[in-house]
């Protein structure tokens, strides 16, 4: 079944644009059938139903019923491969 990933940042601009691109390529390269939606973190609570994973570049204001991963590694460049693995592991 196709999976769904929510990519969130605080302002809904800037950082999530870069992370969105990285996650889309990561899924494609690994043959994972998943759609990716860019959102503001404030929307995550209402959008988590029907999604499988939240990837956020900002602090998580609450807890969610689906896994949520902080993805600032994609911005700083420190720990990017580990983050790739963590995202993939959550979608297998």
């Amino acid at each position, binding site marked *: 079944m196709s999976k769904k990933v929510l990519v969130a940042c*605080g*302002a809904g601009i*800037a950082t999530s644009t870069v992370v969105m691109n990285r996650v889309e390529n990561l899924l494609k390269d690994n043959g994972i059938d998943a759609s990716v939606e860019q959102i503001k973190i404030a929307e995550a609570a209402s959008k988590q139903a029907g999604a499988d994973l939240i990837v956020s570049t900002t602090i998580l204001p609450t807890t969610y019923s689906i896994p949520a991963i902080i993805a600032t590694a994609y911005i700083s*460049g420190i720990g990017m491969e580990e983050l790739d693995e963590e995202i993939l592991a959550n979608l297998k």
Partner: protein
Amino acid sequence: MDLVQFIKKDLIWVQTPCQDQTELFAEVSTRAASKDMITDQFLEKLTEREAIFPTGLQLENFGVALPHTDPECVTEQFIAVLTSEAGIPFKQMADANQETTANLIFVLGLNEPHSQLAVLQQLMGAIQNEEHVKALLAAKSADDIIETLSQVVLHLKGEEKL
């Protein structure tokens, strides 16, 4: 579009005397307002956004911050650049309970951020290579910053990351 097209000489501060976010945001806002690049709301919104969703990033040996705010507050797009040897405290993007001392600050004045993927990737590419960060921090003038960023973009394109 290239990162360098967003860098304006008037919006570069090499070794800013600013010591905290309040001073830094006021300085950038005043200059950008004098060039009619932002709305009256910019400073307030920038400050508010940074408080709720901080943008500090701790690199191995340096700190970086990427403050930005709502697209509605920006009338002409820019990326302001500031360096600070002593550093300016910012809360971290991933965890507001932790601080980083930012030596390199990019204030992003973007009003079409989703169409700026390449520019943002170039910016992240600059941050993600310590040699690039060091070169920017060593800059002695606004021209040095622009020249260094041009080199960074060429380097990134050479790596075919873009």
